[in-house]
């Protein structure tokens, strides 16, 4: 019996827990600096703009624009369970008034993907308590 999970699951830490819990409840949360207003993502120990450590998790808009994308046709440096989902569309999404993030795009043919495409978040469960955001065309 393999101890390797089919697909990678995040380790949940105190720092990042709100993100995964938010996704479970259909919310996209990012750290927003209360001093300068900069949205930080991925999670940071202090604001990368001003250095303030006061960055409460804040609900973001769920719409964004595809900054770039790629269609992965093989599994490389990740877990073999992704094979069933190939091709995997991975993008960088610029969340409106938020920050840029890696995310999967679902519900679209790879041929129809475009830089600049407007997308909206969808949420999938990864456990009883936690979820992960993905995106679909708006």
């Amino acid at each position, binding site marked *: 019996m393999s101890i390797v999970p089919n697909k990678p699951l995040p380790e949940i*830490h105190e720092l*990042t827990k709100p993100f995964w819990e938010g996704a479970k409840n259909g919310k996209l949360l990012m750290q927003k600096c209360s001093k300068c207003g900069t*949205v930080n993502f991925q*999670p940071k120990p202090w604001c990368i703009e001003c250095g303030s450590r006061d960055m409460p998790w804040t609900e973001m808009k769920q719409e964004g624009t595809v900054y770039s994308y790629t269609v992965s046709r*093989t*599994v*490389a440096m990740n877990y*073999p369970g992704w094979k069933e989902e190939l091709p995997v569309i991975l993008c960088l999404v610029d969340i409106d008034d938020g920050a840029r993030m*890696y995310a999967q795009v679902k519900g679209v043919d790879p041929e129809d993907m475009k830089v600049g495409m407007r997308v909206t978040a969808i949420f999938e469960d990864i456990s009883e308590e936690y979820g992960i955001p993905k995106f679909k065309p708006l």
Partner: protein
Amino acid sequence: MRGKVAIVGYGRTPYSRLKPGQPVLNVDEYIAWAAELALEKAGMTKADFDGQGLGVSHAEVAHTVNWSAATAENLGISPRALIRGDQGGSSATSMLIRAASLINAGVIDRALIVGADTPLGMPSVAPGLPLSPERTRGVYWDFQGPFGVMGATAQFALVLKRYMHEHELSVEQLGKIAVSNRYHASLHPGAIYRERFDLNDYMASPVLSDPIRLFDCVPIVNGGLAYIVTSAETAKKVSDRPVYVRGFGEQNNHYPGSRVFPDLTETGFSQSAPIAMEMAGVEHSDIDFFQPYDDYPFISMMTIEDWGFCKKGHGGKFIEERNLHFDGDFPLSTDGGQLSGGQPGGANGGFMPLVEGVCQLMGEAGERQVKDAEIGGVCGFGGIPYGRPGRSCISVVLGAEA
């Protein structure tokens, strides 16, 4: 610091893909082998480094937390200064800068710099995931792996796709780099893949992560490299052909534009290259050959742009118009690069542009020798930050004269 230090020895072991019949060496053995080659070239012994500097690059298979000190123990050297390379593909060049600074400050006179890795055959947490455990834990991984990031190829494919959205660049132009690198590999006995291919073969190679295809990717190998850097005074005594460090520049964690929404089409070479060239006192037209960190052809192309050989967005056209062969008007990756030479672990491929630059300027490049080479540009490019192309971008100008 122009011309204050020089490289007087270099070594690059044969590489292995762990094919049947190929020797199975561990990382310590590769380090010793590479060091031996560099010492022979410099006419030195390991005793010459007691009380001097020892630089050690990270290895995926590093078997202790005190990697540089453990390497000193394995080699039986008692250095005054240990230098640790943990900047991925820019480790070799970053250690050159650290060693040069220590030499210039009078702390040491010389340093032996080594790097090796045996990523093939490394125990893996999952099939298809040949990564050390340190790569698959922590916040950095938690916000990539579960989101479907398929390694460097997917990460760089996002950069390339964006570049192609903003600028004119054809797949064929990138293919020309891969084909030229393989041509140079055919002239380099140490390259792992030496059979020439043409643009049709490149185009026929499968797309892995659109628009990056198989022939755009570095093959992973086991192997080791080393070099010896010393003060210019010592260099003149021990070597007929010292290769001088004319200039260097380093930019880490570069944000082109906003930190939150950076422009992915620019690398930190836009900052480090002008500094290196100014220190060296050279113009672009003075540079006789160029060794970028070629983990992907478009990284070579973007490096050429950000060094300023052409305007941003004109890299594809530049590649198309220039002859990239060792005897052409823009000799590029004259050892075959990592693309055809192989990458001995993520922290050691960056020795290759430097070692080839030294080899060319010593006039020892054999069939691929750039005629009358006097000035070379070499690069280190290391680490992949979240959603951006390169954590460390180091530019070095080497010269046959100080």
